[in-house]
């Protein structure tokens, strides 16, 4: 059965900041209210709500339940939650709308990382026998991946610096970015390593923030807006948990998801890639077969704003924004989850036709 066409009709994100004094539900409510307003809908018409967040970040057991305060859950609503980036909440809502009995969904993702210490926290998500006792943190895994890429001759540190310079420069025009700046790649390469072979500019900052999207069926979308952004394909694929069992210099799950989502060599004008390290941008470009005709991360990407658990949903928002404003005819959003690009989602967006 062919999938029902589903469009993005509203979106919003809070600014990404290093440390917010607002609670996670407060951040979520700001994003949700703005997305609902942009879509021009009555929240009571939403048939399904799905959120993505991680209780460990803010340190509140059942924090995701408190986040429901921001979902307009009165009168009672139908809702679900994923302990994943909000982009997977969007995937669940996309599947839910396929059932055919609802025409609007609210999706949101949120993360308040500032209370925790990511280097201490993240090893807890690894297997408890071999990896977690090592204290293997995302920065170290990112560095191992970058080293493998350099050793394989697939990239140079100058490639990494070029990606950082471009991203940070683009982030200067992103009002929601946490990090931005105009840098000469040659100057960036003079900095010390933070975790060799990665320098500070190679690593996404960690942000507090939230983002939300309103999904609609095609009919409802066309009634709401003249510029609906259609999800032409969406798919996600996963690889084994143990990083040592993978070729870290490639991302076959990204390639597989893109093929299932309908990429198939077609022109992509804008790609928003969830590259948490400059080295991952190199891997993802290769996995998706993106060439010079594709603009990568015009928002600045995760190097500019990385609201963990919403960073992927923001990729979809930034890609949708470019389709809606006519910058891109066809855009791709990539989202990742897990360690070293373990789990990847690809979403292809187009305007109406």
């Amino acid at each position: 059965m062919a999938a029902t066409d589903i469009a993005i009709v509203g979106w919003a994100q809070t600014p990404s900041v290093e440390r917010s004094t607002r609670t996670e539900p407060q951040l979520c409510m700001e994003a949700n209210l703005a997305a609902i307003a942009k879509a021009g809908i009555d929240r009571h018409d939403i048939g399904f709500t799905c959120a993505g967040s991680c209780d460990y970040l803010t340190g509140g057991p059942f924090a995701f339940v408190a986040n429901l305060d921001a979902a307009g859950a009165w009168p009672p609503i139908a809702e679900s939650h994923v302990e994943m980036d909000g982009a997977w909440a969007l995937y669940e809502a996309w599947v839910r709308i396929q059932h055919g009995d609802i025409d609007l969904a609210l999706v949101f993702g949120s993360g308040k990382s500032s209370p925790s210490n990511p280097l201490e926290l993240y090893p807890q998500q690894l297997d408890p026998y071999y990896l977690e006792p090592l204290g293997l943190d995302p920065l170290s895994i990112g560095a191992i991946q970058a080293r493998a890429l350099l050793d394989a001759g697939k990239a140079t540190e100058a490639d990494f610096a070029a990606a950082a310079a471009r991203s940070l420069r683009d982030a200067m025009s992103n009002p929601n970015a946490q990090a931005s700046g105009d840098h000469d790649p040659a100057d960036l390469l003079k900095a010390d390593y933070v975790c060799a072979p990665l320098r500070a500019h190679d690593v996404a900052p960690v942000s507090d923030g939230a983002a939300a999207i309103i999904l609609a069926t095609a009919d409802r979308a066309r009634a709401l807006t003249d510029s609906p952004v259609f999800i032409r394909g969406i798919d996600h694929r996963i690889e084994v948990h143990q990083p040592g069992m993978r070729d870290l210099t490639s991302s076959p799950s990204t390639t597989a998801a893109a093929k299932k989502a309908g990429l198939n060599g077609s022109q992509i004008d804008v790609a928003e890639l969830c590259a948490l390290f400059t080295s991952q941008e190199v891997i993802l470009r290769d996995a998706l077969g993106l060439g010079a005709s594709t603009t990568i991360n015009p928002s600045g990407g995760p190097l500019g704003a990385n609201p963990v658990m919403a960073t992927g949903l923001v990729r979809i928002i930034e890609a949708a924004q470019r389709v809606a404003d006519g910058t891109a005819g066809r855009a791709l959003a990539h989202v990742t989850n897990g360690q070293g690009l373990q789990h990847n989602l690809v979403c292809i967006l187009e305007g109406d036709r």
Partner: protein
Amino acid sequence: MAEPEAASAIMMDHLVTLTYVEDLPPNTVRFAEGLVDGRIIGEKCPVCARVIVPPKGYCSLDMVLMDSSHELEVSDHGTVTGFTIVAPVKYYGQTKTEPFVYASVLLDGASGTLGGQEIKGLPADKVRDGMRVKAIWKAPAERTTDGQSARGWGSVSGAIDGFESSGEPDVPKDHYKDHII
């Protein structure tokens, strides 16, 4: 073929400590400062007019963000809407040895109850729904912001040591029937 000898299991302790350092949101800072000052602050929703104590910075029922302009003071007198007599069992961290009462208290002027409030000054079997109570404030110098958090639903425990009878007559059930929890 001989059965292999059962290997003895190797046991390994693996304790995890995670450290969190959080800032209180502005609404909770003002609530905590009010408690230290002897005042209980709530937020009045501009849509449904419910007064939410402790304030969350929003009304979740109407999906409205709120700020200091929505704040007002509620009374430190209230009504017991429901209670549990706890007969403590010994578990790690339990400091109580005698039965005690945890009650829900609907403060005058608030639209929801404070949960888990200890009722003091009378035997557990004398506590009843509809009973009028007043806050037992700590001495001003002893009031702290303990119990405040950016997570969860707030607390008054840093400034209020439970509730006791106010001496007012019990109120009829109609007054609190929507708050029995």
